[in-house]
């Protein structure tokens, strides 16, 4: 089986400071995992702030380079992807979804611009009608339509809608992998599930693998296939998602699991929940 994404002992170290005194921050230490090409899955990276999960996501997206180790996408080492032509080929297959839906698009520009641009740059040129249909299709898949989004500015839509437009944009290049960095943490709780359900649909209907980076164990439980837990740059636990989250082994994973606040109050007297 060939690997869609193959991380081999990836490390990333940042150096802060000047010539005479510098600190080295080991953001990511020796991370290895494989996502197979034949079987699309939702691969979740769990961690808190400072765990290195965002740095790892950026490395997968080729925005940062690993200090050591290698990251192979579809068999190609990302360190070889340097020229703009190579990058275009890479971005055709790997697309990001960012945390802040309000920042994902330029507030001064209309939204549909990005959608048309993505379609035009990555796929064979078509005439206006073809492109319109393609964009409309992508938007319908996420529960919107071109009519609703056309000529709109970002601030006219809610966080949930914006994130859906961002997903539609990512879909327009027909990617094989989507890297979503905390995609629902800034979306209202009532709208969150529709986006999370969307990820499931992308995996099941379109065969797109998703790297889902988050700190929220509940949504991770809901949609992940496999999961790795990161603490200070190191993978402390990995495995099948439900198994890991139902019965974590590592002390840190246990701590995380225990700290999750369940959205339910014990049916007994209210004072039952009052003990700190």
């Amino acid at each position, binding site marked *: 089986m060939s690997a869609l994404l193959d991380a081999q002992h990836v490390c990333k170290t940042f150096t802060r400071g000047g010539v005479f005194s510098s600190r080295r921050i080991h953001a990511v230490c020796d991370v290895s995992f494989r996502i197979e090409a034949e079987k699309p899955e939702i691969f979740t990276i769990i961690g808190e702030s400072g765990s290195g999960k965002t740095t790892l996501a950026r490395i997968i997206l080729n925005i940062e380079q690993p200090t050591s180790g290698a990251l192979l996408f579809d068999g190609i080492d990302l360190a070889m992807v340097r020229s703009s032509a190579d990058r275009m080929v890479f971005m055709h297959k790997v697309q990001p979804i960012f945390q802040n839906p309000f*920042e994902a*698009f330029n507030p001064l*520009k209309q939204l549909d611009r990005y959608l048309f*641009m*993505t379609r035009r740059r990555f796929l064979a040129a078509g005439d206006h009608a073809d492109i319109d249909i393609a964009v409309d299709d992508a938007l319908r898949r996420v529960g919107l339509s071109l009519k609703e989004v056309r000529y709109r500015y970002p*601030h006219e839509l809610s966080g949930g809608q914006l994130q859906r437009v*961002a997903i539609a944009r990512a879909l327009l290049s027909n990617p094989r992998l989507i890297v979503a960095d905390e995609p629902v943490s800034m979306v209202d709780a009532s709208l969150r599930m529709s986006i999370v359900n969307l990820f499931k649909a992308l995996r099941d209907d379109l065969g797109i693998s998703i790297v889902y980076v988050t700190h929220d164990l509940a949504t991770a439980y809901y949609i992940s296939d496999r999961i790795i837990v990161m603490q200070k740059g190191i993978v402390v636990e990995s495995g099948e998602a439900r198994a890991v989250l139902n019965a974590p082994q590592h002390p840190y994973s246990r701590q995380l699991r225990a700290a999750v606040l369940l959205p339910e109050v014990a049916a007994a007297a209210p004072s039952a929940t009052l003990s700190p």
Partner: protein
Amino acid sequence: MLAILRDLLRYNLEFRIGIVLVGFVLVLSMLSGFSPYPPQDVYVVPPDVPPSLSYWLGTTSRGQDVFWQLTFAIRNTLLFGCTVALISRALALVIGLLSGYKGGWIDRVLMSINDTFIVIPLLPVLVLFYFVMRDSMSWLMLALIMACLGWAYDARLIRSVAMSLKTREFTQSSVFSGMSTREILVQEHLPYVMPIVFSTTMNNMIWSIGLEVTLAVLGFTDINTPTIGGMIYWANQHTAMVAGVWWWIAFPTIAVVITFIGLFLLAVSMNEYIDPRSRLSRIGPVTS
């Protein structure tokens, strides 16, 4: 564009005053086309006549009508200021945006050059150029030299805006939408940089005109083409203040002050309009 102007005219007092002042100065400069006397000629009218009905702003000790001289002077001065401003803005934009967005060695090289230019003392260098070039120092030459000296400070400003824009997520969205560096800089980042460009354009014009007046008063420019500074230079040569020919100095000064105030007001009001924050509060559904 017209809607913008209409909005500004309707709601912004500074803009109205600025437009009036600058309009007045522009009209004055356009009147130069109607001058009955060629600008370089001297002793075409009786000298030292105070402002009167036949000579509205009086005449100079060189026998020139102050009014018509002023039209040429203000036209040349404005042209000069515009040229310097445009060329230096273009330089500052290109260097600032590229440097801020690309980072790395491009940034370091460009900023080293930039810092060198900031430190150069302007007046001595300009005087030096004048002495080296003498008669071949035309106005265009001077404008080019000043443009090359005037971009450095603002390039750094633009660079810092570009650097902060680079970290914003929509830049990454643009990259992953397949946009090239040039497209991102022009289409995504430029609107954020425009307020700086605008206010620095006005600043730059004021600076260059001021410098030109200084140089001309000192005699370090081509003083035969009439400019505001040139008029003041000649007035000093003929000791106009002592001789009581106050109108020779007063009116060019008033004209240039009106120009400065008008430009400043325009800059301030357009800035408020273009500023992304106020733009955002104007877009979108309206209730009233």
